């Protein structure tokens, strides 16, 4: 059995935990070609994230004293600069997440580069720093996306689904290679909870998962990640997880995780840097 963890996490930790928040805001509810919204109600669902969700999340992270990684589309940065500055000032990492939360698969590499440049400029203007982490917005990346990220100086991507620990993309030597920190749908709140009538979310208008059920799944997963000594990445969206009910459930999950020995709570950039160092040796 794979019971003895094979990965030597820092400080003798048994597993890593990356809490991540995709601050998509209304970009999920507008036409990404034009930026127009067809429904003010959906727009408001999105706006709830940066407006109510982000401050609550930052308070919770302060209270729990754990770091987190926020992937923020350029348009959210432009519209909610104070919330984004607050994230940065609180010491958390901010990663790139498109301008309009574009699906990179549907864009040429030149377009992808333009999207990245625009959002990076906006982030630098607001926080004084550019992102070194990338998470693919809205589904698939294109074949050439990782090489583009590498050329543009990103340290890591957190987009793929094919492993439960980081890996190297193999694009260059060990000191410079792009690191991947994979994530999984079963640890994504949006696909469990988001709901709307028109446009229908999810497309089947399936039931909303009860908060306790999804958080119980996340506890099962944590138990597995801890047992095998892996890298547990939760993908959350402030517009979904930022409700009073789910904030309380998240606090409970973090407290539950803390009952396990040897848990390393880390930002994406710390995990990537550490992984690079280990494998470079």
């Amino acid at each position, binding site marked *: 059995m794979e019971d003895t963890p094979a990965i030597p996490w820092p400080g003798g930790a048994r597993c890593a935990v990356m809490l991540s928040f995709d601050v998509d805001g209304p970009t999920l509810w507008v036409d990404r070609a034009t930026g127009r919204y067809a429904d003010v109600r959906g727009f408001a669902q999105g706006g709830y994230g940066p407006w109510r969700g982000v401050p609550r999340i930052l308070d919770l992270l302060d209270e729990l004293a754990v770091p987190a990684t926020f992937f923020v589309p350029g348009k959210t940065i432009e519209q909610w600069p104070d919330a984004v500055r607050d994230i940065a000032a609180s010491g958390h990492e901010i990663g790139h997440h498109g301008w309009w939360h574009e699906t990179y698969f549907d864009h040429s590499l030149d377009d992808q580069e333009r999207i990245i440049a625009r959002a990076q400029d906006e982030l630098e203007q607001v926080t004084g720093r550019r992102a070194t982490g990338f998470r693919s917005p809205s*589904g698939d990346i294109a074949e050439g996306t990782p090489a583009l990220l590498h050329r543009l100086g990103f340290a890591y991507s957190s*987009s*793929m689904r094919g492993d*439960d620990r980081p890996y190297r993309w193999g694009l260059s030597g060990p000191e410079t290679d792009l690191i991947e920190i*994979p994530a999984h749908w079963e640890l994504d709140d949006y*696909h469990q909870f988001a709901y709307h009538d028109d446009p229908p979310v*999810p*497309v089947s208008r399936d039931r909303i998962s009860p908060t306790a059920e999804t958080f119980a*799944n996340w506890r099962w*997963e944590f138990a597995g990640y801890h047992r095998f000594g892996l890298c547990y990445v939760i993908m959350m969206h402030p517009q979904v997880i930022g409700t009073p009910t789910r904030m309380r459930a998240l606090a409970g999950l973090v407290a539950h995780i803390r009952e396990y020995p040897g848990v390393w709570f880390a930002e994406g950039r710390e995990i990537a840097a550490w992984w690079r160092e280990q494998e470079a040796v």
Partner: protein
Amino acid sequence: MTRETRPAWPGGARCAVVVTVDLDAELFWLRLHPSAADRPKTLSLGTYGILRGTPRLLNLFDELGVPATWFVPGHTAQRHAETVREIHRRGQEIGCRAMGDEILADLDNEQIGTVVERSAEILRELTGVRPRGFRPPPGRVGDGLAPILAERGITWTSGMFGDDLPYFLEVGGRPTPVVEIPWRWEHADYPYFAYNSGVVSFPPGRSRIASYDAVLTEWTAAFDAYHDRGLCFVLTLEPQVIAKPGRFLLIEQLLTHICATPNVWLASGRSVADHWLTRAMTNDPAHPEHVRATWLRADSSKEPSNTATQP
């Protein structure tokens, strides 16, 4: 008095359990949309089953002594030859799943024969053994499969429904020596758990991922009920789905419970089929398989056609 009779299982066991694994890997996604081939993120969902899922399941099966049957599509075998060899080296049965991307009902008999031959040969080249079990890839299946399979060394299948016990596949109202070990959707993992967003979405309506606790409760209750009635419980797993770190714990608990239950015959599909062949080669006249095989006789002098009518 009960209307249901209890079959005798080897060694006086009360029930049989067959653990089946569908090693579809990337093919699970490639089937859904032609663009999946160009989507590294979507394909990586399938690769996880090869990289992490299969080794984890093999270790668990070793530890608990579970003789599972792994249905490997030809496409998966070509892409992941070393994984197929390892499954075979670990003493697990490997079954045929055609090349994996065809809808059998859309092929004529000759085409089916070609596909079965090709995929069975790919497995034989990797393991040295011709597969004897067959599970059709997802999608509609037409009539007349049994003789095509039997001609190519297939002695049992697991692709049908209609019973909780094995039975004999029929052609033209007569049983063939091909044993069917029926499965059920609700005892498979992917209807509860498999998920992808975007263009290559699954489920198509993007329903929520089910509660792990509810599914473990469901499967545990199902096994207990099959055990109680003395039936053949067939579990269907996909490593990319069930061997995620958290769900692995779930299947470990279920199989530990099954292994700790007295009088359970945990067997490969092949062993169950061989056992069934020691019985009289006949189905009850009211069995859905016999009724299907005689369904259109009253209306037509021809053999039943393989064109299914949509409801």
